[in-house]
């Protein structure tokens, strides 16, 4: 594959930034446990769509930013994001062929793994949740994938990100 000019290189960081804003947007207490993992969704999308542009290091940097924003253990989100990004990178050729609904099932599993890893690392610090509510974002994230996918795909095509 001929590596040519990297078009629209600013699109990926911008979408990551927007995802971070969404991730810290204040929510009513009732909805707090249901907040989708926006950043993980965006990282997953770029890893699947452009595996040569977004991968392990993107996940590392995005995850560390999220750790600082959340006030979490430094590396917690980063580790979880790296693991699911690697899984997505191993599967991306298959995932691309799936219908959006099938993809959202894969996203459900991946975000579930993300949440479990975060939970384990939080418990190391003594701040873990006591209930299984930490798994709820997997459900909402899977649902939001159906929204994020066409949106980011539209962005990628409009700005011809390669």
């Amino acid at each position: 594959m001929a590596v040519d000019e990297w078009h629209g290189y600013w699109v990926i960081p911008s979408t990551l930034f927007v995802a971070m804003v969404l991730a810290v947007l204040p929510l009513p207490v009732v909805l707090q446990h249901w907040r989708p993992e926006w950043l993980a969704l965006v990282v997953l999308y770029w890893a699947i769509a452009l595996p040569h542009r977004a991968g392990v290091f993107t996940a590392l940097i995005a995850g560390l930013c999220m750790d600082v924003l959340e006030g979490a253990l430094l590396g917690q989100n980063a580790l979880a994001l790296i693991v699911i990004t690697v899984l997505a990178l191993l599967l991306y050729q298959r995932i691309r062929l799936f219908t959006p609904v099938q993809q959202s099932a894969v996203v459900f599993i991946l975000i579930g793994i993300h949440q479990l890893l975060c939970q384990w690392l939080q418990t190391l610090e003594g701040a873990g949740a006591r209930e299984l509510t930490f798994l709820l974002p997997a459900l909402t994230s899977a649902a939001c994938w159906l929204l994020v996918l066409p949106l980011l795909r539209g962005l990628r095509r409009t700005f011809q990100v390669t």
Partner: protein
Amino acid sequence: MGARLALALVVVVGLILADLRFNTFSYSRAFLDTLLSPVYWLADVPASIDEWSNTHITSRTELQEENERLRRENLVMQGRTQQMASLQADNAAFRSLLNSTALLRDDVLVAELIGVSPDPARQQLIVNKGEDDGVYLGQPLIDADGLMGQVVEVGALNARVLLITDATHSIPVQVNRNGVRAIAEGNGSLTALEVHHVSATTDIREGDLLVSSGLGGRFPAGYPVAVVASVDRDPGQAFARIVATPSAALDRSRHVLLVFSDSRPDEEN
């Protein structure tokens, strides 16, 4: 991918261990916090717009009504403070009789909430005052009704506050009625504090006000912390199970006060 993955994993695991074991990053975290603060400002825009519209797009009658209400409140407050001066003088006199130091009034700084930690397992707030305003590590934060938490991270322009209800937070308290001392621990729920290791025979009942005791030197004494909601004395257990409801509106306050108290550690000065 293998080499990159290995490198990234080494970096991350190293960071986790360093943060967990040695707590090495307080300075770099504060720097990163400042770098990433635009994220919080942007996320706060809807709330600011709401607040702006509340103050600027209100009808005349509503404003008049509010003014009226505040006037009445003010009158009541002033009525209550009339005796304050004499009471304070009394208190100072008694304290000098007891040879104890005079209580100093704490200075406060009004701050505004600009974010809450998105992780429901972590109860932290971000306020819009930082090192530039003199905020320091460990500084107590209160609202109109009671103690909220303490500053755990100071950036240049904003600071991160750990709430008293966070699962990793404990605060020394005493019962206002009789001075019984205890420790109130957060359990991760915004509406409850657990008071541990209080023996079953201790005089503490439902409705008791718990105030900060000032022991430990982190929080100034005398700020309301919580009201005892339930006391469960099980004869089979060595300790009573006590749950208290925080006095401060932890999930509602937008304007908060940072307290500059004398208990500030010397090395920070």
